[in-house]
């Protein structure tokens, strides 16, 4: 049924059949050398398409990120697709862009660059090759559908591209930086009901785009990101742009300097669209606890999710059933997922980048602690914070990491060793890899679907020749309580500077300095922040310090040593779930308090921060509800490149579907039109 052509005017989509099969979301086997083989569990579907050529590899997530194209593709190029017996598996595959017959036409034209970093999706290349100039894009396209062709030229074509693709398009003049920026800004406007952005710096972004345009005209582009719109979580300092941490305490605070990571992106010519929403001071795992309100998961409005919803869900209660993004970098995740930007920065202290990445179907990279500068990142837990990267594919994450990584004299905790350049070699053979499956991660709260996907992923590695072993991280269960002590202690310390004197909120009380402090902090922080400050100060009291803080530090060491032992035993990569389940509706989520939610949300991700290791969420498949489920890969410290290489291999194997968003969002927009989302200030 997904072969029904996308029609913006269509009133809706028929409900999906065969919903029970939804956990079979892995791609069916392909004859290609690197295609996954699941003879045991997957219904074998011998492909009726051109075999993948060894030399031209599937683009994977580099492919179109937009709902239109796969459908279009499916409709145009795969007409014989068995509509009647459309299972969840093939439905998903149907959405996949990378494995289409059209590529055959490209053979020899775009070969992957030998370093393995270039792989433009074949269909995209086809478009580029056929219609090198957007102005000359023929109305009567060989795709046989003028409407589609027009759409291809529209926002979403460009907005769904990978970084390499959009960079190439900019270079070749397919689109200008200003046009691209405008498209993103209008996309932000269209999706403002998601509440992904706190501040949209429209004027500044356009100015940056204009400057980028001038550079392109002179043929002096700064770098691969020149002219590419990005978004930054609102806890990174941005010179001249309000940085709030979603807290009253910093409302109106305009930093006079750029965080190092922000500066590095700007130095590459990236266009900074705005600042994305989060939990107040990044304390949360839902992006629901900031003063600007919760972030909505774009997948709430995806065709995949809507179609899977039970029939008794009607339009009426749709608004109350939207899903959380996860957090605390939920705004960044929503921004990337909804195609408002090409990459976004999050921060990751206990899983704040990987968690929303998992729930929003994105790649979320937490680099090794010390690889990327924290200067300018408003801290949560200094010893665990890492700037995180949210992108739609692993290759994009590697590109951004390559720009961000490296020593920063302003951050003494960054490595002084040379790093990068994070160009990912193509992994052809995983037989030398050893994948560890930590047995302690089989926790009671883990949903059976996630559990099943996790074992499928393990099987996938095994079937491709990798050694998959069960390993033990015995101190995992202490991670949450240990994190609680260490996190709150650092929070208590870090938040001490917010006293209303130098910057940020100040109350009207002026009886005494002490009274002013107390009132300012009471007014400025929400309950979560105040609660953590209180606990943290309790743990740091002289009489408690040894019993709590010192003990927690010792446990942290044990947790870190667990990883060291496992990696020393020959394991290269650990494979775990990222979250307990797929995204839950907001109304469900807020039934628990922030602490419980954070403990649950961070359960698989937190200990990685304790150990400072690199970890990445790779979206694997859709759940029975049509929502993304991601898995986490964890690597040795400073083996980010290896981690990304394996992640990309995995990404290619699983062929996660693209969110199908457009028409539903169009519908939703009218719903939200009357809503006043004052938090989104389009300046």
């Amino acid at each position: 049924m997904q072969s029904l052509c996308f029609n913006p005017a269509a009133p809706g989509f028929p409900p999906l059949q065969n919903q029970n099969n939804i956990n079979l979301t892995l791609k069916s086997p392909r004859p290609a050398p690197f295609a996954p083989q699941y003879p045991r569990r997957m219904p074998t579907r011998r492909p009726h398409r051109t075999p993948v050529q060894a030399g031209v590899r599937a683009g994977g997530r580099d492919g179109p990120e937009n709902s239109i194209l796969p459908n279009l593709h499916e409709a145009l190029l795969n007409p014989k697709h068995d509509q009647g017996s459309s299972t969840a598996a093939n439905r998903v595959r149907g959405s996949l862009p990378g494995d289409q017959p059209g590529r055959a036409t490209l053979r020899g034209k775009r070969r992957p660059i030998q370093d393995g970093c270039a792989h433009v999706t074949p269909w995209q290349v086809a478009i580029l090759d056929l219609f090198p100039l957007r102005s000359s894009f023929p109305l009567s396209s060989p795709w046989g559908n003028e409407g589609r062709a027009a759409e291809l030229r529209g926002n979403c074509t460009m907005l769904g591209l990978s970084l390499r693709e959009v960079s190439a398009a900019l270079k070749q003049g397919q689109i200008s930086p200003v046009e691209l920026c405008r498209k993103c800004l209008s996309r932000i406007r269209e999706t403002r009901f998601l509440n992904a952005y706190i501040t949209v710096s429209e004027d500044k972004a356009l100015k940056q785009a204009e400057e980028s345009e001038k550079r392109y005209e002179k043929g002096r582009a700064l770098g691969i990101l020149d002219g590419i719109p990005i978004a930054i979580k609102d806890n990174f300092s941005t010179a001249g742009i309000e940085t709030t941490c979603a807290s009253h305490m910093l409302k109106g605070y305009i930093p006079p300097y750029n965080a190092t990571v922000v500066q590095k992106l700007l130095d590459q010519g990236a266009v900074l669209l705005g600042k994305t929403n989060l939990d107040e001071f990044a304390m949360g795992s839902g992006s629901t606890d900031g003063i600007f309100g919760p972030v909505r998961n774009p997948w709430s409005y995806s065709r995949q999710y809507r179609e899977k919803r039970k029939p008794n869900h009607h339009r009426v209660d749709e608004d109350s059933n939207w899903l959380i993004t996860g957090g605390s970098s939920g705004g960044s995740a929503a921004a990337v997922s909804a195609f408002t930007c090409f990459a976004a920065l999050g921060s990751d202290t206990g899983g704040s980048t990987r968690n929303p990445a998992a729930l929003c179907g994105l790649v979320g990279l937490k680099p090794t602690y010390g690889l990327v500068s924290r200067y300018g990142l408003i801290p949560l837990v200094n010893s665990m914070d890492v700037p995180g990267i949210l992108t739609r594919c692993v290759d994009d994450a590697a590109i951004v990491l390559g720009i961000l990584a490296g020593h920063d004299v302003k951050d003494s905790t960054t490595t002084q060793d040379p790093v990068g350049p994070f160009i990912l070699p193509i992994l052809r053979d995983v037989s030398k890899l050893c994948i560890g499956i930590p047995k302690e991660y089989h926790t009671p709260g883990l949903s059976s679907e996630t559990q099943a996907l996790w074992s499928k992923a393990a099987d996938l590695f095994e079937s491709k020749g990798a050694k998959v072993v069960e390993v033990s991280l015995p101190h995992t269960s202490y991670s949450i309580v240990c994190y609680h002590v260490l996190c709150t202690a650092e929070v208590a310390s870090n938040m001490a500077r917010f006293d209303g004197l130098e910057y940020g909120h100040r109350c009207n009380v002026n009886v005494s300095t002490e009274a002013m402090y107390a009132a300012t902090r009471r007014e400025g922080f929400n309950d979560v922040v105040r609660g953590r400050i209180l606990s943290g100060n309790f743990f740091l009291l002289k009489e408690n310090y040894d019993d709590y803080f010192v003990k927690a530090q010792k446990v942290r060491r044990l947790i870190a040593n667990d990883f060291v032992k496992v990696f020393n035993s020959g394991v290269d990569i650990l494979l775990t779930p990222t979250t307990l389940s797929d995204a839950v509706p907001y109304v469900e989520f807020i039934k628990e308090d922030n602490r419980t939610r954070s403990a649950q949300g961070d359960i698989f991700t937190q200990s990685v921060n304790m150990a400072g290791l690199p970890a990445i969420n790779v979206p694997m498949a859709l759940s029975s509800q049509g929502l993304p489920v991601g898995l986490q890969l964890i690597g040795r410290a400073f083996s980010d490149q290896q981690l990304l290489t394996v992640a990309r291999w995995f990404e290619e194997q699983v062929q996660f579907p693209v969110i199908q968003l457009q028409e539903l969002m169009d519908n939703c927009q009218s719903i939200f039109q009357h809503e006043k989302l004052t938090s989104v200030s389009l300046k």
Partner: protein
Amino acid sequence: MAAPMLQWARAGRCWLLGPCPRRMILLFAEPGPGRVRGQSSAAAQEPRPGAQEWAAVVGLEIHVQISSNSKLFSGSQVTFLAPPNSLVSFFDASLPGTLPVLNRRCVEAAVMTGLALNCTVNKKSLFDRKHYFYADLPAGYQITQQRRPIAINGSLTYSLGVGALWSPSATKTVRIKQIQLEQDSGKSLHDDMRSQTLIDLNRAGVGLMEVVMEPDMSCGDEAATAVKELQLILRALGTSQANMAEGQLRVDANVSVHHPGEPLGVRTEVKNLNSIRFLAKAIDYEIQRQIKELENGGKILNETRAFDEKLGCTVSMRDKEGKQDYRFMPEPNLPPLILYDTESLPMGADPQQVVNIDRIRESLPELPSVTRERLVEQYGILPEHSFALLNEDGLLEFFQNVMKETRAEPKKVIGWILSTFLGYLKQRNLAVSESPVSPSSLAELLSLLDDKVISQPAAQQVFEELWQNQGKSPGQIVQEKKLELLHQQEELEEICQAVLDQHPQEVMAVKKGNHKVVNKLIGLARRATLGRADPVKIKQILEKQLQ
């Protein structure tokens, strides 16, 4: 942070009050109003029959501002008396997201100071956060070294008395518990009229060394002498200007009293000591106060007291309710500070990135105690003179410059410098560097004196002239004022004969055997030469003529 260390002080290391201050002649003490001075000894002067003697225990915490171009963790400049808030980086103002970056110079200064104070320099030291809310502490915490400071277990030797009473036993040693690197705070200016507080963050984040001295001292004089010696060492090293008036050296004293053999008493902390003189006075006052309080059946509170310069006493500072819990925790943004020696230095290490303790040890300048020994040996001057030379900033250099250019004996030079020259400076409240008389002028003057070109009184006259009229050399002044000694025998004989002729009565008296009258005649003869004759010579001539 000396609070706990007082409790662990070595038993039996406390001194009786009596003998200590009486024996010494303070090198630096200026005559005070006398009300407080010497009170510590007074406490033991008249022990009531049967009453036990009191012993006082004094420990010091000294905050030394490191002399560096930029602050401890930021690139802001360090300058005294800059316009308010003109030297404040984003980090100093604690803007969120900023991080500390350790200043290499401050580390080297601390290592240097540690070595000079015979400390063990820790190859690995750690930074901690000490939390308290105060308006001039923007981050809400101070970065310090609580758990593992950069240097530990040192000692400082100081000499209490010199001169006639000088003896090696007056040389004392105070143990240095530790030296830690930490941030200075900003300054609060309280405007009571408008009930507002103004904050200047220029000082916020300046590098400090906190030198913690064990409670090995027993009176104000000991403490003051130890601090003076520390000051000299710091200046010799160049690690601090150590100027108390400018707040580059701040001393807090922990004081308690007890009966010898009994556990230490409750201590008080005395703050607000901004000169060495007041430090001694405040400690002695505090010892006295505590003894009186205890003898009257009172109790000593563990409190902070401030010294009131005008009243000459310590007063209780309103302590913030309850005890402060600083909630120390490790500073997560600074990795452990690793220092190397030549042996442990990693191969190919960037010299800009490592601090080599051995290299610093090799480059240590001469320390004051060594300088003094050298002066005594080299110039044959008295030990107390060597102290005096070092105690005045720039005086040693002045002395050495004079010595380079003059033919005069070092003993003569030192006499002139310590009495005449220093006297002039003190009278006019000038520093050595502000002296209108240059070392070479003084050297020339002393050479003239030494060559007997002029007499001692004439030399005084020339010095006065030099002080008043800059630009003239001593030679010029001598010529203009005709101050040269008369050397020609005939001329002098004539003058003497004239004197004898004019005073027959005196001549008669001498001849009758009253030899004291000769002195009168000598005086008359000298007056006749306008002081330009050598009295010894005149005496010889007169005696000859009288025979």
